[in-house]
């Protein structure tokens, strides 16, 4: 993420400039190329930033298109949570990132800002193990409750299998009325 800030030559994108003016130190770094804008935000200011991005008349980011995460194994901070925003009104886009350390993979939930974040954050929790503080019901969405670990993390063993039934299934694994007797 550091290398993204080392491009002072290009003129700052107007939206990113306003973001910097508004939040100052909370904006860790920005990057923009031909309308593709990215801002890395300090973890503590995420919700305030998102509310401003949604409500300011010049932004109007009324749609959260995606929440996902990236695992940069071996780098510090290890994780990045990525928010893709879109404005139906203005037809423009922005990308917000929050960097998270491995030993404290927590970030505030933005369900209060965009209710569509609910399932997206559950997906990021399920597959990457990102904990979203303030999420109304943070539980797995794709995998089953018995699954251990978060399979899209880079240190999840590629060959590891956790079947509910069949070879390798734990003894007496629950699967809902299997017995034909």
């Amino acid at each position: 993420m550091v290398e993204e800030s080392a491009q002072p030559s290009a003129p700052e994108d107007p939206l990113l400039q306003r973001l910097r003016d508004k939040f100052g130190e909370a904006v860790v770094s920005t990057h923009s190329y031909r309308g593709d804008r990215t801002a890395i935000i300090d973890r503590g200011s995420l919700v305030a930033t998102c509310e401003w991005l949604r409500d300011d008349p010049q932004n109007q980011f009324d749609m959260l298109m995606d929440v996902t995460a990236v695992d940069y194994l071996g780098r510090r901070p290890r994780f990045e949570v990525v928010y893709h925003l879109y404005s139906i009104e203005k037809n423009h886009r922005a990308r917000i990132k929050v960097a998270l350390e491995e030993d404290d993979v927590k970030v505030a939930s933005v369900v209060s800002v965009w209710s569509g974040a609910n399932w997206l954050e559950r997906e990021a929790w399920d597959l990457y193990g990102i904990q979203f503080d303030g999420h109304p019901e943070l539980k797995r969405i794709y995998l089953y409750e018995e699954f251990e670990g978060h399979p899209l993390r880079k240190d999840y063993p590629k060959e590891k299998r956790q079947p509910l039934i069949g070879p390798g299934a734990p003894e007496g694994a629950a699967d809902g009325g299997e017995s034909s007797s």
Partner: protein
Amino acid sequence: MATETREQFLHQDGRPGGSDLRDSFFTSRYEDALAWARKFAFFQYPFVTACCGMEYMSVTGPRFDTDRFGMTLPRFTPRQADLLLVVGTITHRQAPILRRVWEQMSDPKWVMSFGNCTNTGGPYNNYAVVQGIDSIVPVDIYIPGCPPRPEAVIDGLLKLQERIRRERSDRPVENIHGKQPALDFQAGEAGRLAPGQVKIHDV
């Protein structure tokens, strides 16, 4: 109304025929007739989960028309079906559902594994996908392909029919795996397999 007696069906020397009913019946063994009826009257349950479903639609549609071979009525409850078509990728999360569908089918029943994902997991060797459904339910016929050509499906269907023709309720027969006995479909033994039969892991 006069009742025809048995003598009227026969020639003087005892051979069948000799009445108006000459061409109206044939003789067979009970088991053969039963197997013949079974193999041409599949009530299929399509368990369709992925892109192979498109090829399934093609093969059951009018151009390739498995209806010609007796694979006719899709039943959308397993309780009315005797041929389970597993069409598409099966994930570990879906596995208990597939197993339960199979258990709800009444005997005799057969399972067709349709496509590479169902056979082996296909290209998906990862945390989510079952590496071959034969770890969940016993499979009678595997159709390779990604997706299989309709000709491959029809070929597999004919092979399955040939197997069913030889299946008997009271004795094991060879199946596609070689010397292993076929699936037991004794009434009252629902889902129970004898030792040495197609590998199945109890839950």
